């Protein structure tokens, strides 16, 4: 993946989670596949499910598809 940085994000209950977010500015997989459906169904949702169901970490991934 490309450039990324750790950031603070709002977590459950409206509190700020310090250093609990990660902003990935560019993603090679999305950029080279060029398909939002592949991104959502092959990466975003399965990864969220893996974190939640297998590792017990409730994480959401927000993706911005931009021109």
């Amino acid at each position: 993946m490309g450039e990324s940085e750790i950031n603070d994000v709002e977590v459950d209950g409206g509190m700020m989670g310090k250093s609990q977010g990660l902003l990935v500015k560019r993603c090679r997989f999305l950029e080279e596949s060029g398909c939002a459906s592949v991104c959502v169904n092959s990466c975003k949702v399965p990864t969220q499910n893996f974190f939640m169901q297998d590792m017990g970490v409730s994480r959401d991934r927000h993706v911005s598809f931009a021109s």
Partner: protein
Amino acid sequence: MSLRFTMGIFKRSTVGILFALISSLAKVHGYSQSRACARKGATILPRLHAQDPVSRLETEVIKTTAKTGSTVPGPPVDTKPDYANIIGPLGKRMDQVFLSVFRGKLAEQVGVDSSLPSTDFKAITDLAGAMNARFTNRLEIQRRAHAVLRALFPSWLPRSYAVLFSKPFPAVSASCLQPITIQSRTNQKFSCFFNTIQTAVFVSNERLGDKNYGNLAHGRIGD
């Protein structure tokens, strides 16, 4: 004659009821997306139960796209980094090993493998595209991709993390994942698996529209 007519009505109504039952079951299990629709790359509206989170997600994408027409501006395409020359902290050799292992697990789930060399990242995107083309039910695609992730780790490892860290120390466990990501960020898709909370990705409009396996639309995706 009257009996035969009555039996005919009974048979028709029975067939009608069965058809309605099968249709409703298919909708519940997400089989309402036709292969033709997926091949044409049409926007597929959610047909699942209203409470299904994936359906709500896709509905949100469609609504947002319709409302705004576009999303946040991204960097120009010509600033795309040369991913092939981004080497992970463990070295290029380990990057290739990770890529090869991941590709093998993905190929198992897709049922076919790419003819490209094992070190070529394009094989990953090709296999992901093939999986989306082969299985038109998105829940099946998600289940298989989830299985790939599970197969990358020993079965006891994720469960142990949940018991030892996630449940007793949720904030600490969440924070631990970010440095791992930064340290392990490489040119492999592996690193993307540790993305959490917020991911901003930029692709060109032209490329979003040129695939033929069911792209959704370009828009912001949220909960």
